[in-house]
């Protein structure tokens, strides 16, 4: 390839450069116009928090996904494209309110989240469990067995455990407040260390 062809073709790997200002403007304009034209099926952004970078995603119905870094954000986005719609766009402004509420939560200024949620990624018994979880208030905990009894399925502690493990909206739907029968934290989608951090935060420690 000679000089002129080289200049025309541009950087060999332009895809690596998502910080190109032209591309950033393009992303913003496409997201804004997609929203106006009802083509923004899934909006997402990331938020830096004391428990690492979170990915948050919303449909026009409400918040549909919260994911910790260890859940692999690329894989989560691919999953949303497959399960909801491939019209997934980076649209931070659509999620400013959620970002602000997360800031307030981690700063201890808020004890819960006031956001519409879209539970379409949860089904059956798991969804029932998630719908009951907001009854477990800030600073309190409940055991897997107790929660199973509360949703009318005593003995289904294990199924409650898998509902928590597959919670599409951790933090906002507080599965971190479900602990083992002996009071120890137990497992968590974000990892056991993060569960401990959240429980300590809510105990005011």
């Amino acid at each position, binding site marked *: 390839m000679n000089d002129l062809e080289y200049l025309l*073709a541009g950087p060999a790997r332009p895809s690596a450069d998502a910080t190109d200002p032209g591309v950033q403007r393009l992303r913003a304009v*496409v997201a804004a116009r997609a929203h106006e034209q009802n083509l923004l099926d899934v909006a997402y952004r990331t938020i830096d928090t004391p428990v690492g970078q979170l990915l948050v995603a919303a449909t026009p119905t409400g918040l549909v996904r919260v994911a910790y870094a260890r859940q692999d954000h690329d894989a989560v986005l691919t999953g949303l494209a497959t399960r909801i719609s491939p019209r997934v766009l980076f649209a931070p402004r659509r999620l400013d309110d959620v970002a602000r509420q997360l800031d307030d939560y981690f700063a201890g200024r808020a004890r819960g989240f006031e956001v519409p949620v879209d539970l379409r990624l949860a089904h059956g018994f798991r969804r029932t469990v998630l719908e009951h979880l907001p009854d477990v208030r800030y600073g309190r905990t409940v055991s897997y067995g107790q929660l199973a009894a509360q949703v009318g399925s005593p003995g289904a502690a294990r199924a409650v455990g898998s509902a928590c493990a597959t919670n599409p909206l951790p933090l906002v739907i507080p599965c971190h407040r479900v602990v083992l029968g002996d009071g120890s934290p137990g497992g968590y989608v974000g990892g056991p260390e993060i569960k401990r951090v959240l429980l300590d935060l809510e105990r005011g420690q």
Partner: protein
Amino acid sequence: MSLPPFDRVVTEYGPVVLRVCRSLLPVHDAEDAAADAFLAALEAYPRTRPGSDLKAWLVTIAHRKAVDILRRQARHAVPVAEVPEPSGSAETALPDELLWAAVRALPAKQRHAVAYHYVADLAYADVAAIMGTSEAAARRNAADGIKALRLRYPSPPGSPPESLPNEERP
């Protein structure tokens, strides 16, 4: 196999679509055309076959959007030379702008063939499909275009030497 999130399509193909639009239109119109193209692509995206050639598809849509904009301008325009772009913006500072201006000054067929073959790196068969010509005509227009460009656009100092092997491209 499923479709990747559209945002990934924008970040992966945004640079090439913007460059193609820049070689056809002044900078402001180029960004509009690229946004129009991605929005049209977004609308149709869920019906796209996974694994299809997204670059050729996007460049085809960008071609139509650019042609729309050029037609609209031709209808309204007073025939003057190309309006100079506002000075002082980040884009005009790019050495690229001289190159894009030279491409835009080519006759239409050569300009489009250069944009799709040399800028977008599409095969002549794809260039021919976009332009509605034969493959031979696409090849000839691209060759004539690059020859004309070489006369109008002398290599700026600091550009890579002719002998630079492909694998040493950054």
